[in-house]
């Protein structure tokens, strides 16, 4: 079978999942493609920059509607494609297809959620299990994550990364020589690039009270830009009500592209359009109508490809009797009596 990418893209736009075997093939081919990409990909404006999406597929479709479709618009995605939202599989599927179809017009940077460890807890793994009935698709995508690039430079002027700067990195060349083809480590420059946050109240790096990770201040930004002859840092990673935030005297921007994050934050989102003269325009948008009324049942619906089977949602999602005792009563365990009945409406309403 010859892979027909346009057909894949079409069916994803129609909200149809790809077959597991197709995803495997697409991921394999995309890995080959990404392997030859540098840790710092250079692109030219005009380009439209997209921040965190977090599985909000309907809002991603809205982004294409607002920002233009591929390949008419060049896109740079800054990571965090998966987890939290209900449609991480659809989001990753379409972004991977678009990257493979238009490799020079679509750039995918790695975010901290593009990791095995994080996706196991925050939804992507569970979603793959529900929609495909096995973890294979999760394996294909998380293996692909290891190949995503870490940063992009636009016209030698704008440095783009998911999280921020690292005390171990002073020059772009230092990023170029890193070994990125691995799970995101807990520490070191690769972790910093996808994790760190700016702190407008500071000048230097500071250690987070969590005991790991950095924040970086105004002087750090200034030094980095000066050293590398650039004039702006563009990153994602942080939710903001307005959909974007500009800090440090216009030297750093945060772009956030998941409106009404987690279907409840009520925040705006934006995409950042960088023009041919380096001008930056935030195109702010609200949640897609489908976002307003997320339907978990729809999310769990069997959107299987041709080889799909309908058993994915089976295990564990049942309520049983409203007050099925399972032996717990009295004393301090009284309030736990309803635990395990976590799905039925009744169990939700009759919380203890």
């Amino acid at each position: 079978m010859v892979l027909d990418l346009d057909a894949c893209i079409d069916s994803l736009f129609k909200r149809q999942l790809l077959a597991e075997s197709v995803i495997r093939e697409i991921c394999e081919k995309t890995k080959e493609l990404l392997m030859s990409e540098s840790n710092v990909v250079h692109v030219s404006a005009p380009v439209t920059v997209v921040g965190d999406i977090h599985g909000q597929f309907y809002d991603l479709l809205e982004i294409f509607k607002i920002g233009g479709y591929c390949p008419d618009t060049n896109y740079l995605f800054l990571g965090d494609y998966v987890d939290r939202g209900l449609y991480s599989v659809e989001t990753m599927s379409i972004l991977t297809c678009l990257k493979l179809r238009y490799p020079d017009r679509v750039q995918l940077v790695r975010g901290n959620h593009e990791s095995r460890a994080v996706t196991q807890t925050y939804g992507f793994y569970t979603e793959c299990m529900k929609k495909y009935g096995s973890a294979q698709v999760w394996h294909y995508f998380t293996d692909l994550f290891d190949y995503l690039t870490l940063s992009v430079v636009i016209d030698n002027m704008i440095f783009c990364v998911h999280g921020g700067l690292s005390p171990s990195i002073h020059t772009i060349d230092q990023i170029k020589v890193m070994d990125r083809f691995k799970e995101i480590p807990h520490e070191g420059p690769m972790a910093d690039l996808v994790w760190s946050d700016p702190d407008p109240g500071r000048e230097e790096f500071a250690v987070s009270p969590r005991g790991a990770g950095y924040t970086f201040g105004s002087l750090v930004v200034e030094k980095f830009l000066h050293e590398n002859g650039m004039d702006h840092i563009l990153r994602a990673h942080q939710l903001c009500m307005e959909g974007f935030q500009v800090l440090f005297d216009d030297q750093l921007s945060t772009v956030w592209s998941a409106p009404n994050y987690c279907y409840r934050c009520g925040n705006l989102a934006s995409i950042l359009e960088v023009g041919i003269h380096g001008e930056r325009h935030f195109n702010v948008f609200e949640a897609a109508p489908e976002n307003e009324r997320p339907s978990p049942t729809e999310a769990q619906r069997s959107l299987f490809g041709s080889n799909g089977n309908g058993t994915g949602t089976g295990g564990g999602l049942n309520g049983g009797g409203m007050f099925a005792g399972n032996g717990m009563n009295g004393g301090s365990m009284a309030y736990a009596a309803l635990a395990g009945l976590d799905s039925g409406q009744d169990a939700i309403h009759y919380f203890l």
Partner: protein
Amino acid sequence: MAMHTLIKEKGISGINVHDWTVLSHKTSILNSQEIDNATNELGIPIPEMIFGNNFLSIEHKSGFKLEFKALPALAMVDQSSKSSDLIKVSYAREWFEKRSMANQEHITDVVKPYDWTYSTKYNGTNLSTDKSLVFSPTTSESIDIEQLKKPDPILFYDENILFEDELADNGTAVLTTKVRVMPSCFFILLRFFLRVDDVLFRIYDTRIYHRFGTNTVIRECSTRESSYRETRSRIPRSKGGDLSLLLDSNWVSSQLPEKESQVEVLTLSQA
């Protein structure tokens, strides 16, 4: 059936029943100006998802009023000098060791210490006009669990998130309210739920119960805590590698041992 009227306005839902008004207000997260103000006021970084304008309130004709809001809850987060040393993320030691090897030790500037897990024993803000309306410890009263287990009709139900933070993907800290009003009583659960991956689980619950026709409001506060490993080991084997049960505070709650609990009672003056 009790006489009641439901309230439904923009962002607000609630119920008037007997001499009580229960209101839940839900709106978007704070904007950056509000966050700046709150940060300055509280002196700590604000959780990622901060629903600072959301609230749940209960009010009785007699002037008793109890409200649940995010910022007063965050004001109770520990900011003492040792507060950030109590819990570290699972890889903190490795992080610091590797960091020394990479010659980054010159960065000694640590963000002002605070309990970054946002653990808070907040149990509501008493806004009663009558200052004598306060909760005091009791051993003779407790919440009538059997009553609450009855599948009586629910006149009003609501769940409201006050704040939530993923702890930079090291877990979750979330403060929520739930309320249900039945013909004979109402019941509120304010829950602080904490998961630090590979470290621990913690739940601080506050439950409020009132049986209509009585003149007492009962408040029960409890703390539960256990290690991550112990809790994870309780996931049924049939779940395989699926850790999503660990996201379900009800399931986790049923697995955590109770460490402390306290019951208080407030006596309403005659309306």
